[in-house]
């Protein structure tokens, strides 16, 4: 059956929510208002690392218009559990801090009041007694023996099968690098990046007469949020009526289940609807970011352009807590060699903890950073050995049937065909031998490592 006969594929479809968006009728979470609704403001750590000796909220509690103060003891299961189901353990992040603070802006207690202004004013009255400790803010320092240990399991990295980094070993790097015509090194780094959605985090929870909670959330992952909120609240998930799906920009920044549990607890404690919306400053400075990353490449390259050995050491800054980073580093490790066939690969990828705002998911996190480094390195190689940018990629591009370093055989490769199509689109005439290449030429004419 041809594509045209399908009737759907290839057809332009109008967005179902488009009319609502352009006429202002779409209801975002901050557009939800209930009669008698209370407002929540968070008291956050003013420092990057310290031990909590006391939280005195008595003045805030007595402030006219304040209805409740929520602290760690109000949280039934005081752990963010977001990735425990895929083995990111042990739990390391409290929903509300009570023993120590690990980053500037860490949530400590919530003020719930009749208006947002009263909540903000009362939040400033909470007295925190925190003994400041020297923070760890640099990744190289964090993994050095001189650094204070900030994680309870005894070092400052995530532990992968007993190692302080995720290892990838394929072929024999040490032997191959000795045989290379060129050894080409490169350092690549990225700063943390904030998603900066135009809509900040927001949650509204209304307690219902039947004991359920109606939860308006701008999470990107409604069921994931429901599961984790239920685990934190220690209630069956059917008690949570989740309403979501309308997100004013997410980009990975709204999957951390960061507003719903506290807002639910505030609504349960007061018996009234509660709204918690973040300020722009909270969104920029407290919400998670893309991780900062430092990568070092050492490549063994032959005069004909073949990369025969690649070693990568990468440090990813998780910030103070796991969030999605240990999983991000796993993806990062798999992508650091790039979409190229290299028979000898060595990767050490570290998920490093520091006293910075936690990093987490953002558009292809782990992968995007690796791609940036790989493609810069391919250019460096091309220029060093005097080969053009097209050829260096095409001769090394992986082919169907080849084994990748992660021990997965390449299937459905399209890199060569994509590069060829890109050349055609910009009107660049590839030489005949590059035009003749195909993802299926492994073991035949074109595959260098065949």
């Amino acid at each position, binding site marked *: 059956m041809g594509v045209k006969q399908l009737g759907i594929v290839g057809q332009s479809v*109008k*967005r179902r*929510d*488009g*009319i*609502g*968006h*352009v*006429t*202002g*009728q*779409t*209801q*975002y979470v*901050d*557009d939800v*208002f209930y009669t008698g609704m209370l407002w929540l403001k968070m008291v956050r750590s003013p420092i990057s690392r310290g031990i909590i000796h006391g939280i005195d909220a008595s003045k805030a509690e007595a402030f006219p218009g304040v209805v409740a103060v929520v602290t760690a003891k109000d949280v039934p299961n005081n752990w963010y559990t977001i990735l425990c189901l895929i083995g990111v353990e042990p739990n390391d992040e409290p929903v509300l801090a009570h023993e120590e603070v690990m980053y500037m802006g860490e949530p400590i207690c919530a003020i719930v009041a009749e208006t947002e202004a009263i909540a903000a004013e009362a939040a400033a009255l909470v007295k925190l007694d925190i003994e400041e400790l020297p923070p760890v803010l640099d990744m190289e320092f964090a993994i050095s023996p001189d650094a204070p240990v900030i994680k309870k399991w005894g070092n400052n990295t995530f532990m992968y099968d007993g190692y302080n980094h995720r290892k990838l070993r394929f072929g024999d790097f040490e032997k191959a690098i000795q045989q290379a015509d060129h050894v080409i090194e490169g350092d690549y780094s990225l700063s943390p990046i904030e*998603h*900066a*959605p*135009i*809509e*900040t985090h927001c949650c509204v929870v209304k307690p219902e007469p039947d004991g359920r909670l109606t939860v308006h959330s701008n999470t990107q992952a409604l069921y994931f949020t429901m599961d984790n909120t239920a685990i934190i609240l220690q209630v069956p998930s059917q008690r949570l009526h989740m309403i979501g799906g309308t*997100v*004013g*920009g*997410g*980009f990975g920044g709204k999957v951390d289940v960061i507003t719903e549990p506290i807002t639910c607890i505030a609504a349960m404690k007061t018996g009234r609807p509660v709204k918690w*919306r973040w*300020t*722009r400053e909270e969104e920029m400075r407290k919400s998670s970011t893309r991780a900062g990353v430092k990568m070092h490449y050492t490549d063994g390259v032959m005069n004909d352009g073949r990369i025969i050995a690649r070693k990568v050491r990468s440090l990813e800054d998780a910030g103070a807590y796991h969030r999605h980073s240990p999983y991000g580093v796993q993806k990062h490790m798999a992508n650091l060699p790039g979409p190229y066939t290299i028979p000898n690969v060595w990767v050490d990828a570290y998920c490093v903890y520091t006293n910075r705002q936690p990093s987490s998911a953002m558009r292809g996190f782990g992968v995007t950073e690796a791609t940036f480094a790989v493609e810069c390195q391919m250019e460096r190689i091309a220029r060093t050995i005097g080969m053009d940018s097209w050829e260096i990629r095409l001769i090394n591009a992986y082919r169907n049937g080849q084994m990748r370093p992660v021990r997965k055989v390449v299937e459905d490769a399209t890199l060569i065909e994509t590069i060829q199509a890109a050349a055609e689109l910009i009107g660049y005439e590839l030489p005949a031998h590059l035009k003749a290449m195909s993802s299926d030429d492994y073991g035949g004419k074109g595959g260098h490592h065949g």
Partner: protein
Amino acid sequence: MESITVTFKLNGKTTAVAIEPLESLRTVLREHLHLHATKAGCGQGGCGSCTVLVNDEPVLSCLMLAALADGQEVTTLEGIGTPPHMHPLQTAFFDRFAAQCGYCSPGMIMAAKALLDKNPHPTRAEIAEALAGNLCRCTGYVAILDAIEDVVTQMQEA
């Protein structure tokens, strides 16, 4: 603080509302008058998502005291078109996929309307200049400029 009464023309209708003296026009529109099309993105004049028209001029309603709107003419996105009678800019934004998450769209459309009301034949550069204070994080600006140019072309042909 004692509340005060502000009276202005809102989307063509004379409206009186009791407000706190220091409340912003955005807060009054959204939280007193329940017109939620006008969005809150930053509260500090940085994103443009709260753009409304005051006497046909684009204004960041998060930075304008509602008290200053007294006696003025205020237009929000709700006032320029609703389905099935959408403003040509709304139709063009819909047709051109110029709204992705939609959160910046009300401000974008109002800023564009202010421009076209004054200058029906702007260049693409003039359109971009008029939208310089409006941020979008998803769709990108190309589709938005295309949508507005569509409307300019339609007006030329009409």
